[in-house]
């Protein structure tokens, strides 16, 4: 009975928990509710994963209204993979959130913060699970609105402008997406993704459909922060509270990547757009530019959080590079990196949150000599940084390996060279942190800091260990990604 309604529960649990947090108005109770809700959501995602593995695609009619009239929740390997990532990262961050949040906000604000967190999670899970195009827009707005608030709560006053810019850009993106969906609806008369996929091939060279494709491309590119539409991201990540940065870096862009896959492979895939339009080439070029430009910017950054925000843009470029190959290997690499990067980046931002908590700064100059003061925090950052570079034995190596393989399949040697060169640039900025943190005399600010509290370290180390674990055992990450990639490609042919 319960298993039957898992798709609904996946979204409903955090959705209902959010107002509960707000009603109680107590930080600790709000936190408890958030922990319970996120962990239940994670459990629901795992449950769904096993159901999909056993039974295949699940179609759930919301409220008993049969699709295509009613809203259908459609769970297949592709989105259950993302559901697990999003809810998993979401539930690891919450235990971490307590210390920092309690220290900074009063009781009511804490409760609001957790409410927003849960709403953002609801929105992201909803976007992922639903099989209805308009429903995607609704959930996207829920998650976006909640995350604007979460960013604006940052301690830096620039967080306000960052949130404002993100609001404008996010709204533009969402509007573009809804325009695209509207055009599609006008042409096909359906909002159900599966139905759309069936009808589009018949009208694939009409202008409204092509216009819809263009609007969706730009709208989703904005959401996933693909170069040059990434401009909102660095500030949003840099000035937001640590919890928000970790959460957004681990989930929001990943869901946008899922949306991209869903629209372009499942919905438009049958229409032959990959052959008839230069979509893959555009993505390839933008991805490579993103990898280099953003990494290079990261090398010169003085604010470590902003450095890793730019690194996120570069890593997203790596993911979209894998997508642009339109091959099973490439998609496997992209989805694996989606999984791995969510873990790595969330972990880095959590550890930086610990630094911020102790030192009230993450400026590179202030972090001088911090390696001795906060050994575990810095060791974690170094391990995750190694994973970003793609060092073997960490999960980052696995994803890069697959994406390189995909380039080799197409005999694009120069791309292999570029990917490896980009790794070298990554090494430069990670190396910069290592040098400053371990080989300089402690700065004035770092002189008397202590190790971050355990409540912050332990959740972060869950992700550090996961990074190493998934670098050695790839059964779940690559194994699932590979099957999902095969399913995605099946939509094209």
């Amino acid at each position: 009975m319960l298993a039957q309604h898992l798709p609904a529960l996946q979204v409903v649990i955090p959705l209902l928990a959010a107002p509960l947090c707000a009603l109680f108005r107590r930080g600790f109770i709000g936190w408890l509710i958030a922990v319970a809700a996120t962990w239940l959501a994670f459990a629901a995602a795992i449950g769904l994963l096993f159901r999909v593995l056993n039974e295949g695609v699940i179609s759930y009619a919301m409220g008993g209204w049969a699709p295509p009239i009613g809203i259908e929740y459609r769970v297949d390997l592709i989105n259950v993979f993302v559901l697990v990532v999003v809810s998993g990262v979401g539930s690891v961050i919450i235990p971490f959130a307590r210390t920092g949040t309690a220290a900074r906000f009063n009781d009511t604000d804490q409760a609001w913060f957790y409410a927003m967190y849960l709403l953002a999670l609801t929105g992201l899970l909803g976007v992922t699970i639903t099989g209805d195009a308009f429903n995607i827009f609704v959930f996207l707005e829920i998650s976006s609105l909640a995350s604007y608030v979460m960013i604006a709560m940052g301690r830096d006053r620039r967080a306000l402008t960052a949130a404002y810019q993100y609001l404008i850009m996010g709204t533009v993106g969402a509007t573009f997406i809804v325009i695209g969906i509207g055009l599609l609806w006008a042409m096909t008369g359906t909002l159900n993704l599966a139905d759309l996929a069936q009808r589009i091939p018949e009208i694939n060279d009409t202008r409204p459909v092509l216009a819809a494709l263009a609007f969706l491309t730009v709208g989703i590119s904005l959401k996933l922060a693909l170069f040059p539409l990434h401009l909102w991201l660095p500030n949003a990540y840099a000035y937001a509270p640590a919890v928000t940065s970790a959460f957004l870096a681990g989930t929001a862009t990943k869901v946008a990547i899922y949306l991209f896959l869903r629209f372009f492979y499942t919905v438009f895939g049958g229409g032959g757009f990959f052959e008839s339009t230069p979509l893959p080439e555009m993505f390839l070029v933008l991805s490579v530019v993103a990898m280099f430009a953003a990494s290079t910017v990261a090398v010169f950054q003085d604010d470590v959080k902003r450095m890793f925000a730019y690194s996120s843009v570069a890593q997203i470029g790596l993911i979209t590079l894998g997508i642009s190959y339109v091959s099973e290997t490439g998609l496997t690499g992209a989805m694996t990196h989606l999984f791995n990067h969510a873990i790595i980046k969330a972990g880095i931002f959590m550890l930086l949150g610990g630094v911020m908590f102790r030192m009230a700064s993450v400026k590179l100059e202030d972090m001088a000599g911090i390696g001795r003061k906060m050994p575990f925090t810095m060791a974690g950052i170094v391990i995750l940084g190694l994973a970003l570079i793609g060092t073997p034995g960490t999960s980052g190596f696995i994803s890069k390996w697959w994406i390189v393989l995909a380039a080799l399949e197409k005999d694009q040697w120069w791309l292999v060279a570029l990917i490896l060169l980009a790794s070298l640039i990554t090494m430069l900025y990670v190396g910069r942190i290592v040098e400053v943190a371990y080989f300089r005399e402690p700065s004035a600010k770092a002189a008397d800091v202590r190790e971050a509290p355990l409540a912050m370290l332990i959740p972060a180390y869950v992700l550090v260990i996961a990074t190493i674990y998934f670098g050695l055992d790839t059964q779940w990450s690559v194994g699932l990604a590979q099957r999902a990639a095969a399913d995605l490609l099946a939509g094209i042919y």
Partner: protein
Amino acid sequence: MIEFPPGLLLILGALPVPFLRGPLRGIWMLALPVAAFALLYSLPDGNHFPISAFGQELELLRVDALSRVFGYVFIIAIFLGVIYSLHVRAVEEHVSGLIYAGAAIGAVFVGDLVSLFVYWELTAIASVFLILARRTPEALAASMRYLIIQVGSGVLLLAGLIVRWHETGSIEFGHIGIDGAGGVLILLAFGIKAAFPLLHNWLQDAYPQATPTGTVLLSAFTTKLAIYALARGYAGTEELIWIGVTMTAFPIFFAVIENDLRKVLAYSLNNQLGFMVVGVGIGTELALNGAAAHAFTHIIYKSLLFMSMGAVLHRTGTVLATELGGLYKSMPFTTVFCIIGGASISAFPLFSGFVSKSMILSAAAHEEYYFTWLVLLFASAGVFHHSGIKIPFFAFFAHDSGKRPKEAPLNMLIAMGLASILCIGIGVWPSALYAILPFDVDFRPYTDSHVLAQVQLLFFSALAFTVLIRTGLYPPELRCTNLDTDWLYRRLGRRLLVRITSAAGAVQARFYGALNRRGQRFLLQLYRHHGPQGVLARTWPTGSMVLWVALLLFAYLFLYFLDIF
């Protein structure tokens, strides 16, 4: 019997070191190589530690005769290194040294290229801390250059192994050869670590910048790991002979004009590697035996030389030839040990260099590579001048600098003493070394012709050296320069050589100057666009962001519509 990779034993053993204090730390660090040695000794040949990861079968412990030789000498080197560095308090130096050695030993025993790559990168990353630990701005800069080149080598190896896997479907680390693109890439990766000509600059750049103890370890592992990898993958590749010959010859010219004695040793290290590369390139059983044996003896006597210079640096704070001299009065033991090292590297009979180098020379002669043989002979003379004479002479004798430092610390003396015993022991009883070489040895080093030829060479050079000093004909910097060329060359006069050297120096300076300016301009450009205030990094007004959105929308619309127009 325990079947566990000795390299991993060292790496894991390094982890508790920061938590140990006092004598316990020293005992633990000394016990690690001893345990690794016992472990390796007890292992029979074969594959012992297969694991599967990344969907591949990885062989982490392939023991055969070739890997065993290198394994033994690497363990001896880290044992000596640990003794030598016992007085060092900085724990990161100990940890990174042990991990570095463990990675090198691990790399020797892997049976596939993927695991080799992992260890390859680990040696690079672990060793950079030995340079950083010096904590000078020059060391920091050198270490970053070193790291980039070393990791670059690893990236090439990775690229090569992927290509090779693509070509052959196998990642086994056996004979590779340069038939495919993968083989060439991997050779390039090995070549960087082996300091092939033109790929060698990192070595002279970084090694003299490391800590006194760090350089000893650095000199032992990275390059010899590359020699092992070459012997495994490219034995009998004829191109290597030419590369090796060049390597033996060209560093000599640099070594003689160099003032920093540790840099002189770095050049001579490069030259010694050339002998091994030639041995690998010839590829006969005798030649490969020679390469392995030379690597074995070389690691020990080169460590010894670096240890003696490290002791000088430790006590006086400098290793510049112009600032040293007369140290034998207060550092007699170090002087003796340094001379033993110098005698070994110069291949005096009864010292270890002789029994291994003569194998390579014989192999070259036997296969009728006479030109190679001649260059190697010339290089041997050169080695004698800049390592055998120049190093001890300028540091311990020459003009008295007035410095009277204390004798080296006891642990340094013990390490140098042990290394000296090994140098002489191997030279006098080579059969023990010959017994562990990859192929059966049917070679006698002490034949009349070998000994006579070598003694003549050395004697003649020494005589010339004495004459030059007595007559005071040449400025100090150039004494050795003239000695390591043959008679004819000397008659043409040092002016020519000076002219060539200075002209080459000027060209080099101009070239690097131009490169430097260009590099700086490039960096400036990069910074202008990517720096914190650069166009790519600053916070944009929201309006401009939206403009980008609109632009992209039009671009996409245009591109999509192209098809149906």
